């Protein structure tokens, strides 16, 4: 009788192990508030992305826009990822998503646009200027200007290459440049600079992916 009970527990555990059950934390979606919505599905028990898709319903005025997002493996992150192109975003509009494996519904999740904005990563540039300081400029990668553009802010981080201490500065995107004062840096030293963008639309709760690193070198004497 005891061995039968053990068998029952074993079979139950096998089923729980094999029956993939995603949680809300496994499904993440972000929008760039321009045209793109990207979703990712992560789970240690997810063997394959094949057959997994997201049906998305987006109420717009009195109609529904519908999208299908088919997951594929991202080899860098090892997550399943997909993206859809949307006809512009409006702050409080809703996206209702249904996660499917084949025809089997795994999960429903609702997103409000402003809550899941993740801005595009900025592209940095550094130039040494006449006074010896370093002028940092960036491209926020958005085509249009306007209120969304004004609500962005850039979070700059720089420090000695290979070092452990960094300096962070946050400035409004509209400022368009930031000057790093050379006399506050060590002479004849390589520095690296990165940045992220965030938006006031969701109280800066989701930063962009980090920008590519740029390097600059201070003079032998400052």
């Amino acid at each position, binding site marked *: 009788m005891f061995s*039968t*009970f053990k*068998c*029952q*527990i074993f*079979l*139950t555990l096998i*089923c*729980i192990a094999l*029956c993939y*059950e*995603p*949680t*809300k934390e496994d499904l993440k979606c972000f929008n760039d508030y321009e045209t793109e919505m990207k979703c990712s599905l992560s789970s240690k028990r997810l063997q394959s992305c094949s057959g997994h898709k997201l049906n998305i319903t987006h109420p*717009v*005025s*009195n*109609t529904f*826009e519908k999208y299908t997002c088919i997951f594929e493996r991202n080899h860098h992150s090892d997550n399943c990822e997909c993206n859809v192109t949307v*006809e*512009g975003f*409006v*702050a*409080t*509009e*809703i996206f209702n998503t249904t996660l499917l494996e084949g025809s*089997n*519904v*795994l*999960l*429903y*999740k*609702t*997103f*409000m646009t*402003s*809550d*899941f904005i993740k801005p595009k990563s900025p592209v940095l540039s550094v130039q040494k200027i006449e006074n010896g300081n370093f002028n940092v400029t960036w491209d926020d990668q958005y085509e*249009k200007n*306007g*209120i*969304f553009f*004004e*609500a962005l802010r850039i979070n700059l981080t720089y420090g000695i290459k290979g070092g452990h201490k960094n300096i962070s500065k946050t400035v409004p995107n509209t400022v368009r440049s930031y000057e790093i004062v050379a006399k506050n840096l060590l002479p004849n030293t390589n520095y690296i600079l990165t940045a992220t963008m965030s938006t*006031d*639309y969701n*109280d800066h709760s989701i930063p962009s992916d980090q920008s590519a690193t740029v390097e600059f070198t201070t003079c032998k004497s400052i």
Partner: protein
Amino acid sequence: MMKTILLLAVAVFVSSTPVTTSVKPHTDKTPARHTDKALLGELVDELIVAIKDFPKVLPKEKLIFLKDLQMNGLDHKEREVLFCQVEQELKTKVSGLSDAIFDHFRTDKKLMRNLNMYNKYHVKTCKLTDEKQDKIPLHDFLKNLLASVRNAYSQVN
């Protein structure tokens, strides 16, 4: 045997029930101030573009006249009603027009979507004004509306 099947069935049932969840549950109540700011700010942006793109001179058959709604000197509540009336006026008289010059006013474009979402949180239905009311050209209607939206935006910014 029955116990085994029952345990298995319960395990399958529990693991196959879809999880329903929302990120930051959304209500129809008054949105956060920064949401009003976003919607009104976007509306200003879209109106500026729509006015810039709209031809100053139109052939007679493309002239559109809308009700000359009272758009200045309004308090907060009156302005909420105005925006509801504006949406109705644009939807009934402009949104459905086929010419490309009216593209900005289609209900799937950002101008109307922002206006629609703002009204969803403030005044969803409103009493329509008398159709016999004086009418003004669409271009003038939009300029008056822009001034009113800018005023509303300055109060939440």
